[in-house]
């Protein structure tokens, strides 16, 4: 996630806060057992990872398949945070790999995040500081 724009938010109890801006959250809801395929597709397309949890779906399932048994009610929800520039690529890769165009397979949506924060390797922070100093030097 090194290509997201980073901002130094300020100090709180003498601790620097680094946040990532221009990031999006991809949420994908699929049938139970398919989360690995989704997370694999996302990481192949450049995402750093994903978080998976179980949920129960309810909707038009009863109208699909024989007595509604064809569509698994148990779902897996996958959350993947990506940079805005990666979002389209990761979204498309998941869509094709998990075959979301198949009816009843699942849904996926992207929401824009105001900001995010996580561990940022020290070398990335050092690089960012160097670039900032350079930019300030160029601007006088």
């Amino acid at each position, binding site marked *: 996630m090194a290509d997201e724009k980073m901002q130094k938010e300020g100090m709180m109890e003498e601790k620097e806060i680094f946040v990532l801006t221009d990031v999006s959250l991809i949420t994908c809801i699929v049938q139970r057992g398919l989360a690995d395929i989704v997370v694999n597709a996302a*990481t192949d397309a450049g995402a750093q*990872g994903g978080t998976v949890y179980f949920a129960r779906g309810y909707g038009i399932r009863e109208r699909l398949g024989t007595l509604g048994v064809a569509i698994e009610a148990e779902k897996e929800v996958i959350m993947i945070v990506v940079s805005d520039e990666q979002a389209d690529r990761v979204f498309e890769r998941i869509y094709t790999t998990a075959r979301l165009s198949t009816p009843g397979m699942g849904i996926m949506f992207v929401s824009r995040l*105001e900001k995010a924060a996580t561990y940022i390797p020290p070398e990335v922070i050092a690089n960012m500081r160097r670039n900032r100093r350079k930019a300030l030097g160029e601007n006088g």
Partner: protein
Amino acid sequence: MADAGFSGGMLITCILPKGSAIPLMKKLREEKGLTAMSFHHARGAGRSGRSRHGLGHYVENHVITIAVDEEQAEDVFNFIYVTANIGDDHNGLLMMEKLHMLSPFTLPEGHLDE
């Protein structure tokens, strides 16, 4: 819906190592007065644990979801960052997104402090 008088807010989602959610929620309640929050279990996989044949192992996580007023959001975000040491390696992910509408949640007066 605008007539209903609901204003927007922020949704803060925090993915933490297993076992971190309840102590953090307790602090948020005691120190920030938050009540509209919940947590659930999840599993996380990333590039760091990945093998040549695909995904490596999953790690158990706790995911906290907090709805806050826009004015309070920055403060709560920073508080979680510092309290949960989000900036340290393998300590999770914190994110914040804008909510179009947020219903107010208040507890009845004199509720049991459980």
